[in-house]
């Protein structure tokens, strides 16, 4: 599009501002995510990471600035916004699976309702996805019967079923018992290796170091620093990022 970047960024945010009442939560955010890029967002609690993530599919409406997904500005509402959201996968800290449906139904529901995929095909593709995240044996269980790690893997499969262009993860392992963190990160690592464009908010610094193409450090609603992981972790530039890393790496 523009002369400076030969490929259209998958996500581009320009001068994004967001308030919650008097609270200025996002301050002039500029961020681009290239196709197939994995961007890990880190920062102290309350720095605006979740809000940033949620503005990308317009679960939060911004006050100022522009957000584009695959070159298209976010539609304000209605059918166009729904179509955009169908192309942007999202994984939440609390899984948010539909409690009244089986795991397979959770995965196959949106493709049938939104993409008009025939039921049978959606079911088969759903099974394949459950296979891929390693919980095919739980396909006919209800979410409450699964462990947290299994639920989160089901939620990832549910998002993937829409064949999204980009996946947003908002602290996908923060609600998990420690022994289940690995199984979810493994699935995400696999996705990244297959070339999925990903924005991942996480406190898992090991994952950031291994999988991220770029680490974005946020504090007080601003992007303070961004760099490839080796550079971010080993040659941290800002004082605030150094303080943050010191506090999270302590334990």
């Amino acid at each position, binding site marked *: 599009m523009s002369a400076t970047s030969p490929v259209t960024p998958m996500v581009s945010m320009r001068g994004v501002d967001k308030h919650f009442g008097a609270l200025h939560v996002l301050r002039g955010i500029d961020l681009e995510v290239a196709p197939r890029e994995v961007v890990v967002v880190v920062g102290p609690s309350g720095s605006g990471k979740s809000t940033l993530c949620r503005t990308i599919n317009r679960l939060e409406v911004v006050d100022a600035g522009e957000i584009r997904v695959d070159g298209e500005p976010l539609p304000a509402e209605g059918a166009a916004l*729904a179509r*955009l959201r169908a192309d942007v996968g*999202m994984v*939440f800290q609390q899984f*948010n699976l539909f409690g009244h449906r089986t795991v397979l139904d959770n995965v196959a*529901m*949106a493709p049938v*309702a939104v993409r008009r995929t025939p039921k049978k095909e959606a079911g088969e593709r759903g099974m394949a996805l459950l296979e891929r995240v390693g919980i095919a044996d739980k396909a006919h269980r*209800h979410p409450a019967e699964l462990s947290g790690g299994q639920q989160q893997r089901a939620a990832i499969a549910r998002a993937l079923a*829409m064949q999204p262009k980009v996946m947003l993860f908002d602290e996908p392992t923060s609600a998990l018992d420690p022994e289940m963190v690995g199984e979810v990160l493994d699935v995400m690592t696999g996705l990244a290796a297959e070339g999925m464009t990903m924005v991942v908010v996480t406190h898992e610094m090991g994952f950031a170091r291994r999988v991220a193409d770029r680490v974005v450090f946020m504090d007080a609603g601003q992007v303070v620093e961004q760099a490839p992981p080796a550079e971010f972790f080993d040659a941290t530039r800002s004082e605030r990022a150094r303080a943050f890393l010191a506090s999270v790496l302590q334990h």
Partner: protein
Amino acid sequence: MQALLDNLDPLLRALGTTVTITLVAGVAALVLGTLVTIARVSPVPVLRGAAFCYVQFFVNVPLLALLLLAVFALPDAGLIMPLTTTAVVVLAVYEAAYVAEAVRSGVNTIPPGQLEAARALGLRLPQILRLVVVPQALRAVVQPLGNVMIALVMNSALAATVGVVELTSAVNKVNLVEAQPIPIFAGAGLVYMAIALAIGLAAGRIEKKVAIAR
């Protein structure tokens, strides 16, 4: 006992009236109450406000006052309906407010995160209602709605005060002739209890049927 048997015919007819009033007003209240809830959770502020006022009004005004108002004031205003119809309409709009409250509390049992997940998947509002909200709210709402329906049966007795010949009214008439209040009113009480029990049991059955497998 004999007093009841001697008057079985009018009593059964009156029971029929009670059941009919309850059924018709009950179905109407379910439909109206659900519409009020949809208005109440809709994105349109005017609808939300109107639904809120509706519920507040009918929850805070005694049913008897509404019945008297409808029976004596509406004809004055030129709206003339058969007595029983008037009673059914008043009961329906009154109980609809309670239905709306019950349904809303059912909707509120759905974790907001699920609604967000549904939106994030690209589902539209009608799809979210059909696929996520209604099936889960239904489960939480069966028992409370059963209780509203039981209250409706009991409240239908108030129609006697404005001259509808339903069970309570008929029993009262029989007692005026036979002067045996204990067996007569106890018998009527048992019939009301049986109806309430039947509704409670039905609600229990339905709730089991729609329960989430765990």
